[in-house]
C-alpha cells in the first residue's frame, strides 16, 4: 500500500514538469509576447523593451522556463497578461467553486451509479434495460446540452432552481447545494452511466463466486449477501473506473461552469482562452494536474482500504 502511494507521488513529479513544460512551450508560440499583450500595440518601444526585461522575456527560452519553475515552487504562477493580477490569487479564489462541483459530482456518480448497478444486477429485466438506456443517453448526450435542457426545463420552466450563480459553502450550505444541483446533474449523467455499468458487471461476476455460495449455505439473508459481501467485493474494480470518471468530470466542469456561470477555474479558462491569456491557462493546467494527482491518491487509498490483498503489501 505504502509502495503504491509512493509510486504515485514519484510519478507526480514528472507529471507536473510535463504539464508545465507543455503549456510553457505553447506560450512561446504566441505571436508577440506577454509584454506586448499587457501594453497593447500603441506602447512606445522603450516602455515595451523595459517591460520585456523586467519580465525576463529577453532571456533564452530555457532560462525563462527555469525561472517559471522556480516561481512555481515558491507558489507563484506569474501574472495574468490581461489583468496584471497574480495568477495564484485569481485561481485561489476560483478553486473552491470547481472543487465543490467536481467532488459533489463524483460522490453523486459513485452513490447513484453503485445503487443503480447493484439493483440492476439483482433484478435484471426491466431495470437492467433501463440502466442500458441510461448509460447510452449518459454517454451520447453532450453535457453542455444536458445543462441547457436542465436550465430550460427546471430553471426557466419550473423556476425550481437558479439558472446561474454560485453561493459559497461557508455562506450558506443550503444555497450552495441548491445552486450546484443542476450543474452536478448535468455533468454526472455520463459518470453515473459508467459507474453503474461497471458495478453491474462486477456484481454479476462476484455473485457467481464460490464464496457467495458458501455464505448462502450459512443462512445469511440475500440482503446481507448482496449489500455487504457482494458490494464490498464488487466495489474494488469500480474504484478504478471512478478515477477515470473523476477526470472526465473535471472536463465536464468547464462546460457546466460556462452554462451556469459558476465562477470556477473552467469559466476562467474559457475567458482566458478568449483573451489569449496564456499565463492563466498555464496556471489552470497545473492546478488541474495536481487535482488529478490528489484524486488518484485518494482513490488508491480507498482501493487499498477495500482490498486487503493490496493493503498488507
Amino acid at each position, binding site marked *: 500500500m505504502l509502495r503504491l502511494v509512493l509510486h504515485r507521488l514519484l510519478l507526480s513529479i514528472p507529471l507536473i514538469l510535463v504539464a508545465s513544460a507543455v503549456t510553457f512551450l505553447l506560450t512561446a508560440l504566441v505571436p508577440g509576447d506577454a509584454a506586448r499583450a499587457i501594453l497593447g500595440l500603441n506602447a512606445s518601444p522603450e516602455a515595451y523593451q523595459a517591460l520585456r526585461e523586467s519580465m525576463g522575456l529577453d532571456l533564452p527560452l530555457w532560462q525563462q522556463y527555469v525561472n517559471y519553475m522556480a516561481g512555481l515552487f515558491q507558489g507563484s504562477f506569474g501574472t495574468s497578461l490581461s489583468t496584471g493580477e497574480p495568477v495564484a490569487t485569481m485561481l485561489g479564489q476560483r478553486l473552491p467553486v470547481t472543487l465543490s462541483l467536481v467532488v459533489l459530482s463524483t460522490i453523486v456518480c459513485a452513490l447513484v451509479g453503485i445503487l443503480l448497478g447493484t439493483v440492476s444486477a439483482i433484478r435484471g429485466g426491466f431495470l437492467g434495460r433501463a440502466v442500458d438506456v441510461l448509460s*447510452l443517453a449518459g454517454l451520447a448526450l453532450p453535457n453542455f446540452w444536458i445543462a441547457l435542457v436542465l436550465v*430550460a426545463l427546471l430553471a426557466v420552466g419550473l423556476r425550481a432552481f437558479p439558472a446561474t450563480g454560485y453561493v459559497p459553502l461557508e455562506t450558506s450550505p443550503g444555497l450552495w447545494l441548491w445552486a450546484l444541483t443542476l450543474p452536478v446533474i448535468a455533468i454526472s449523467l455520463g459518470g453515473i452511466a459508467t459507474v453503474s455499468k461497471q458495478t453491474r458487471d462486477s456484481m454479476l461476476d462476484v455473485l457467481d463466486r464460490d464464496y457467495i455460495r458458501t455464505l448462502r*449455505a450459512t443462512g445469511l439473508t440475500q440482503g446481507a449477501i448482496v449489500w455487504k459481501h457482494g458490494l464490498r*467485493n464488487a466495489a474494488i474494480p469500480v474504484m478504478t473506473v471512478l478515477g477515470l470518471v473523476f477526470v472526465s468530470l473535471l472536463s465536464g466542469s*468547464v462546460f457546466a461552469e460556462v452554462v451556469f456561470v459558476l465562477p470556477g477555474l473552467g469559466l476562467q479558462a474559457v475567458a482566458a482562452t478568449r483573451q489569449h491569456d496564456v499565463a492563466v491557462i498555464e496556471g489552470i*493546467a497545473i492546478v488541474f494536474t495536481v487535482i488529478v494527482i490528489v484524486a488518484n491518491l485518494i482513490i488508491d487509498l480507498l482501493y487499498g482500504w477495500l482490498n486487503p490483498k493490496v493493503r498488507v503489501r
Partner: protein
Amino acid sequence: MSAPVTTLIPTRSIQPGFWHRWLRKPLGVASAVFLLLVIIACALAPLISPYSPYQQDLADVLSLPSATHWLGTDALGRDVLSRLLFGGPVTLFGVLQAVAVLIVISVPVGLIAGYFGGWTDRAVNGITDIVLALPTIIIVLAVLAVFGTNMSAAMITLGILGSAGVIRVVRSAVLSVRNELYVSAAYVSGATSWRILLRHVLPRVAGPIIVQAALFAAIALAVQTGLAFLSLGIVPPEPSWGGMVGEAAVVIEQFPWLLVPSGGLIALTILAFGLIGDSVRDAAVEGWSRRAGTTMNWIQAASRGRAATAPSVPDTAVLRVEDLDVSFGDTKVLDGVSLELQRGEVLGVVGESGSGKTVTALSLLGLLPPGARISSGAIRLEGADITGYGERQFAAIRGSKIAMVFQEPMVSLDPSFRVGDQIAEVVRRHARVSRAESRRRAITLLEKVRLPEPAEVARRYPHEISGGMAQRICIALSLAGDPTVLVADEPTTALDVTVQAEILDLLRSLQSEMGMSVILVSHDWGVIAEICDRAVVMYAGQVVESGPVGDLISNPAHPYTSALLESDPARSIGLPELPTIPGSVPTPREWPHGCHFQPRCARATAECALPIPMFRAEEDRSFRCIHPVGDRTPQEVGR
C-alpha cells in the same frame, strides 16, 4: 520450408467470419448507415439544402417546424435544417482530423511497444502514464488561446492526447498475438519484423483499433461541438452543430425548441459512433468465444417458493430424499434419487465425477445453479417437505438445520473480510447476541476446529491462510448455526494427503461431539471407509446401490460398485496395473434406456435395456441390478 508455415497464417483480416457476424448486429449496422447518410447529406449540402445557411428572414424568426422550414428557424430567421447541413462538414472534419492523428500515432507506437517490448515498451508506458493524467480539455483550451480561432489545432491536439489510451490497448492486443504459433512460425521462416508486424500482427489487432477509433470519434465529436458551443475555434456566423447549440442557448427562455435539432443530431451522431464501436467489439469477441446466452444469476433465478407445503410427518430419518429428479432445461441430470439419513449417522455418497453426487448435495440446501430445477420427487428434512422452498425459506433453514462444506476451501471464503468477522456474522444470524459475544463465539468455533491460536487466526484475511486452515474455517462457518445435518462435498479433495486425514478426523469427532448427522460426498473409497456408517453409490444420475460401508466394500452387489472398488488405487497395490472401467461416465444426454451402466458392463444382457428398479436385499442392502455380483440370484432379491 515456407509452405507449411503459410497454412498456419490466417489469411483473412481480423478473424474469419468477422464481417459476417458484424452484419448481423442490427444496432451497429443501423448506426453505420445513419452515419453514412449524415455524411452524404452534409457533403451534398450546397446541392440539397433548401436555403443558404446565412439567409436571414427577420419576418419569420424562431418558428417551429413547418412545410417551408422543416426544422424551424433561428433567432435571425435562418433555416435550421440548412444550417445543420452546412455545419456538418466543419464539425465532422474536426472529428476526422482528431481520429486520423490518433491512428497515425497510436497504431505504430502501440505495435512497436507491444512487439519489441523491453525498454521501448517501458519508455512508451512511462510517457502514456503521464499523458493520461494531463487535463486534456485545459491543454486544448491553451492551444486555442495560442492559435486563436483554429479548430484544426485543437482537434490535432486532442488526437495527440487521446493516443495515450489507445496505444495501451493496441500494445496489449499485440502482446496477446505476438506469441501465437503463426507469428513465431513467420519469424522462424525468416520474415523481417516489419513484415511480420504489417502482414500478420496488424490484421489481428485491427478489431480493437476500430473499436477504439469509433469510441474516440464519439469523444472528439463531443469536444468539437463543445468548443464550437463556446464559440472557440469557429467564428459565429459560420454554421456548426455546436455553435447552433450556443445560438439556441441565447434564446432558451423564449424558444427552447431550438435546442432540439442541433442537440439531437449531435447526440445521435455520438451514439452512432459508440454503437459502431460496441458492435465491432461484440462481433470480435464472439469470434473468440461463443458465450452462453444466459446471464441469469441465482437471485434472478430464485423462486418465491410454494405458499403451502405438505405438513410435517413424524419420521425416524432426519433427512429423506424420495425419487428426486433434477433437470437442466430439458435434460435430466438426476434420475429418481432416493436416500435417507438417520439421526447421528454419517452417510457416504460415492461415485465418479458426472454421477450427480454434487447436484444431489446442492439440491438439499436449495443451492442448485440457475437453470437447474427439481422436476419431481421430494426432500424431507425432519419430516418437513422442503422441496418447493424458495430462496427466503431456504435461508431460514440453512446454517441452523442443514449446513454445507465445499470442495475448494481457498475460494470459499470472502476475500474482503477477516475470517473471524465472517464467522461472527453467521453467529449473529443464528443467535441474538452482541457483537462482542459473537466474536467470542467465533473464536470458540475456531478452537473447536482445532486451529492453534484461534484469536490470531480470527484476525487474518483469507489470502493469509493455507488450504487446510481454510477448510477448518469453512467447517467452523458451517457449525456457527449449530446445524442438525451437515453436508460435506469432497471436503478433502483439494487438500494435501496429510491434511486430508486430519480434516476427516475432525469431521468425525465433531459429528459425535455435536450429535450431527453428516452426508459426506466423495469419489474416494478410502475417505468413505474411514468415517461413514452407510453409503450410497451413484452412477450417471442414479443411486445404484446402498448399504453399510463394510458390507458394501467386502461384498458389492452392483457390477459398477464392484468395478469402482477394483479400480480404487489404494486396493490395487501389488497388482501389475490399475484395473479401470472401460469407457467413461455418459453425459446426461447420452444416458441409455434401462440400466445406465449397461454399455460398460460385462454382465449386461438384453433385459438390461428395460427399466431397472431398486431391489431390496438382506441387511439394509439394496441395488439397481438384475445380474448382481456374488452368490445372489435374481430369486433371492425382492422388491
